[in-house]
């Protein structure tokens, strides 16, 4: 069964009414279990579970320590370009917005990368909007090739690619891929993506799977919290993660929980997610999928991020900028406003104070530019 089919089945099986009927006893039974089913996961996202957050937190922390140790991986985004063909109603970069459009040359990207590497970071995430015209795969490959000498890990968060394209990027030195479904509800999705290639719901939904098939080492997914109803969106995102982990047990699956933040545009957030619910989502995901990586970005304010460190987060961005060329000059617009402006060094100190080890480099790539290396770029059959 494809994930699309599983999602359709789940939407029929679990109604909002079902969630409303969850009782305290149901939550307690789930908390006493070690292996949670999808049904258990949904129970932890119910209103009845709200009074058990502390118990969930204690258990989530213990599980995270067991599987990840007391360590947080640090990374940062580098925006290569903000050209975009889509008109997503909730995003600064969308085609209808009159913003300053910029695209870094590969050399500029390398310069910014060098600055980032000077802070000690060795895990980089490259971002673009969706524009095959301005930022084709060949451009991405060029940038990756230049940057790979400074970074142990290069991830991409760009438009959905085909499996072959992922293979090519892996060959160039990419090991990680991020794509957010944004919203799993197909009707809301259709409404929020009126124009552009992003309209293709199913193609986007199946993107992480194509990356896994191409041989990506880590794959990161996520809902954009606030676009769709609670708790459904988190539920489906969790199921998506479970589906991928089960099918591709050798891929590191992780999830981000970005929340809609102020940006350029008129979009009103219909389903705002409170801090409490963000925490509940984080805890429920950790209990449901103990080995799932969980990321909290600099969309969130500093104190909240710090509190979340102890609750199951495994990756954090540091020293971020969501502007193209943000560390070189300021003449482009942000994709979204940051709430945590701390430097890499400040984040590092915070983690030490909390008893965590900041991890700047998680592995050393043995692959040469020629694509040699024990995993190679053939991916899986």
């Amino acid at each position: 069964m494809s994930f699309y089919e599983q999602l359709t089945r789940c939407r029929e099986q679990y109604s909002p009414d079902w969630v409303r009927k969850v009782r305290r006893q149901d939550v307690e039974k789930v908390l006493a279990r070690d292996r949670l089913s999808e049904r258990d996961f949904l129970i932890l996202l119910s209103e009845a579970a709200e009074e058990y957050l502390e118990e969930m937190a204690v258990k989530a922390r213990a599980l995270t320590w067991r599987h990840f140790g007391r360590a947080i991986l640090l990374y940062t985004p580098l925006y290569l370009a903000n050209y975009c063909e889509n008109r997503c109603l909730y995003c600064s970069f969308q085609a209808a917005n009159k913003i300053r459009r910029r695209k870094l040359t590969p050399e500029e990207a390398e310069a910014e990368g060098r600055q980032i590497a000077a802070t000690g970071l060795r895990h980089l995430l490259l971002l673009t909007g969706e524009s095959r015209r301005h930022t084709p795969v060949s451009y991405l490959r060029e940038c990756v090739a230049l940057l790979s000498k400074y970074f142990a890990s290069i991830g991409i968060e760009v438009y959905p690619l085909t499996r072959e394209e992922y293979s090519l990027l892996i060959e160039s030195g990419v090991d990680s891929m991020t794509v957010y479904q944004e919203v799993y509800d197909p009707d809301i999705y259709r409404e929020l993506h009126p124009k552009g290639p992003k309209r293709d719901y199913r193609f986007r939904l199946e993107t992480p799977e194509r990356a896994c098939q191409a041989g990506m080492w880590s794959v990161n997914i996520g809902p954009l919290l606030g676009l769709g109803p609670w708790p459904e969106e988190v539920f489906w995102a969790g199921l998506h993660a479970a589906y991928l982990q089960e099918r591709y047990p050798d891929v590191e699956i992780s999830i981000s929980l970005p929340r809609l933040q102020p940006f350029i545009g008129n979009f009103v957030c219909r389903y705002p997610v409170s801090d409490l619910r963000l925490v509940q989502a984080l805890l429920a995901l950790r209990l449901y999928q103990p080995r799932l990586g969980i990321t909290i970005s600099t969309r969130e304010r500093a104190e909240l991020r710090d509190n979340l460190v102890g609750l199951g987060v495994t990756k954090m961005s540091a020293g971020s900028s969501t502007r193209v060329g943000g560390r070189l000059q300021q003449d482009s617009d942000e994709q979204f406003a940051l709430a945590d402006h701390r430097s890499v060094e400040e984040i590092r100190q915070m983690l030490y104070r909390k008893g965590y080890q900041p991890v700047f480099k998680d592995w050393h790539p043995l692959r040469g530019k020629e694509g040699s290396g024990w995993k190679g770029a053939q991916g899986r059959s």
Partner: protein
Amino acid sequence: MNDPLVIGGRTLESRLFLGTGKFPANAMIPEVIRRSGAQVVTVALRRVDFEAQEENILNYIDRKNCILMPNTSGARNAAEAVKIARIARAAGCGNWVKIEVINDNRYLLPDNYETIKATEILAGEGFVVLPYMSPDLAAARALVEAGAAAVMPLGSPIGSNRGLKMKEMIRILIEEIELPVIVDAGLGRPSHAAEAMEMGAAAVLVNTAIATAEDPPGMAEAFSLAVRAGRLSYLAGSPEVSRYARASSPLTGFLRD
């Protein structure tokens, strides 16, 4: 307190099922049933031994207050179990049946595989099937698929009175199986029965411990109280949640600041 157990379309107030074997005298049985509060009573089908002058146990069971549950003891495979069940029903013993297929004479452990086969056939013929089984998740799932009305895992080997040696396996069944889980066999003391109920068992079946006690009606009452205590404890809120002790300063306290 409204906490009924519904099995096979029947609503039960008592979660203690009673076995009627090994009693010193059948005449004791009505008193034992009364003191136990049991609403489900098992019996066995046997060939008449004309020398022994055995009495029909049904003379001692009031069918108005009890559901009769013939067991298929003596069956060594599914075919024999099915035969016994059909005979019992045709003879007017109702459509409840406890499937007991044992081909191991040393430990009297049930054969899960034959039990699943028998369940499928009898459930298909409209029986309310309660299979006695060795606690095994895969077998339990197969029994659910086959149409069982409940599953009855053994607590310990029959007659051993050793209590819940199968505790962890039974816990898994209670967690994973949607049907009522009724712990059968091996419960030697009322505290064992309470333990099973506290874990979330739907009911327990007790025979040997009551039948061979010094005072069977007294022991029947003790078991009845223990089952109720265990059930009340389970409903009142499992303390299992604090298996993970609360941190000294709450991890989620910041949400309420």
